[in-house]
């Protein structure tokens, strides 16, 4: 019974922590521009991250190796360094985007200078990380992220034509470059690598072994599936409210309008609160992912559990990455724009970190009886193909659509 509760809580935390600023920005814009037509892209991305995360979690549990340990081992120093540099660059950009998002939400709640909130939010996050134990951080942000459920309530309250909504789950392509850009964006926002890298390092930190494999499966499948429903609800509420009147959600605050429309001030506060915790949690996850990856690749001591005394380089690198992210967030670039770049570049770098994991997960000499079975192998390779196609299309589409400007 106790283990069922533990697994359930893990799934709830995964659900609450699923969304980040990339998801919020891309789903809201996708709904406003294309109403329900991109719901299938969310599903595609959610299945992708479930597959990737399950493999990474399984590899971590069975071999004790997190992602960048696998990468250095399988790709060697040279190619692995490419993966590290790309990954670090994307992660720092992501942290900057999340910090910017945090500052915007705080502005909407308390109306003071954006730059002040960037600094305050960062300091706040450092304090939270310093004071709370590792598992506690995930739980706090995960449970509070459940405030985002107000968007599911909003969708139900709005009462859209569910037949039309269902139609959005049927994949459709168009030769509109802007549409294709959003396919890539919505997919990529769901499949952000930092989340999976953080998850795999977390598994090693928690000392996962083969007894955690079932939990790993459930986290990946149920947790992310529920998170996907949440992401879909963002498209639906945005599509219902914004599409008919042509609202263009280029500001983060716009995402909360549907909840405000449905449930007044309470809805607004729940939505803003939910966004705050999702984005805050994501800032922590992405900054940690950057440090995990660096330390693991170079062979340093690492881990939140080891503490700053035993893993000083890991700790300092985390603070340095945060500082870099703060500088980017304060540079005057709109956080929504930073978000779009971080998401698009993430999918471009994704094949580099996905491929080695796919190989190891199927390698019997490492995984023994836990290597990829028929289903995992097929799905794994299928998604690799999808990821490569999107990775190649991402930058051209970004340039051709002028960053989603149309």
């Amino acid at each position, binding site marked *: 019974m106790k283990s069922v509760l533990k697994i359930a809580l893990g799934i709830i935390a995964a659900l609450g922590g699923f969304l980040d600023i990339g998801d919020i920005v891309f789903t809201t814009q996708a709904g406003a521009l294309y109403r329900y037509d991109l719901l299938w892209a969310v599903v595609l991305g959610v299945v992708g991250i479930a597959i990737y995360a399950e493999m990474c979690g399984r590899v971590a549990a069975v071999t004790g190796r997190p992602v960048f340990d696998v990468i250095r081992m399988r790709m060697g120093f040279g190619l692995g360094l490419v993966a590290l540099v790309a990954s670090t660059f994307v992660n720092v950009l992501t942290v900057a985007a999340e910090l910017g998002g945090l500052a915007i939400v705080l*502005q*909407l*709640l*308390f*109306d003071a200078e954006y730059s002040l909130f960037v600094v305050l939010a960062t300091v706040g996050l450092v304090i939270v990380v310093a004071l709370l134990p590792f598992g506690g951080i995930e739980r706090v942000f995960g449970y509070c992220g459940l405030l985002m459920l107000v968007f599911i309530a909003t969708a139900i309250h709005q009462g859209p034509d569910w037949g039309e909504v269902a139609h959005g789950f049927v994949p459709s392509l168009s030769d509109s470059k802007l549409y294709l850009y959003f396919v890539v964006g919505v997919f990529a926002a769901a499949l952000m690598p930092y989340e999976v890298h953080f998850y795999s390092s977390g598994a090693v930190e928690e000392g996962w072994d083969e007894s955690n494999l079932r939990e790993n499966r459930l986290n990946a499948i149920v947790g992310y599936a529920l998170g996907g429903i949440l992401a879909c609800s963002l498209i639906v509420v945005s599509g219902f*409210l*914004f599409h008919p*009147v*042509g*609202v*263009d959600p*280029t*500001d983060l*605050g*716009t995402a*909360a*309008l549907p909840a*405000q*429309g449905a449930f*007044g*001030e309470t809805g*607004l*506060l729940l939505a*803003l609160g939910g966004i705050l915790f999702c984005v805050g949690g994501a800032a922590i996850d992405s900054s940690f992912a950057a440090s995990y990856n660096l330390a693991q690749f170079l062979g340093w001591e690492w881990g939140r559990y080891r503490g700053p005394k035993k893993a000083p380089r890991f700790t300092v690198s985390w603070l340095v990455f945060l500082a870099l992210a703060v500088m980017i967030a304060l540079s005057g670039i709109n956080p929504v724009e930073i978000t779009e770049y971080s998401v698009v570049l993430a999918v471009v770098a994704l094949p580099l970190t996905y491929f080695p994991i796919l190989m190891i997960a199927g390698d019997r000499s490492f995984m023994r009886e836990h290597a990829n079975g028929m289903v995992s192998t097929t799905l794994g390779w299928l998604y690799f193909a999808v990821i490569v196609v999107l990775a190649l299309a991402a930058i051209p589409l970004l340039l051709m659509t002028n960053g989603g400007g*149309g």
Partner: protein
Amino acid sequence: MLALALLLGTSGCGDLSRDELNRGVESLSALAAQGELIASGVARDATKSTYTRVMAKTLGGEAEHEAEKLADAEPSPEVERERDAAVQIAGELADLFSELQTFPGDERHGELVEKQMGKVKEQADAVVERLTGEEA
């Protein structure tokens, strides 16, 4: 080299084509639509004043930016009338958002702004129709 520089220079400082103007007016329509939603929340006392104030400031800034962009540009002669209308609309939008910024909690003001935003949106949509309609 000089010819190239001149070419780039003139195309930069704004021959406003029909397409560009159209996009500008569409974005004004979008801003008005959002303004209407936000004002509606104020009118029903169903929102938080800090949210209204900050959003109004941001969106008002965007309207002003669009107004400046359109006013600075050189319109091609057949869209000059529409360009002037667009600049006026953008200015009105900026004023309305400024109202919301100043009175973010006042329901009466919210109601007035909501109605006005609706009218401004209709005006913008009419300009879009004139621009795209004339093309056909």
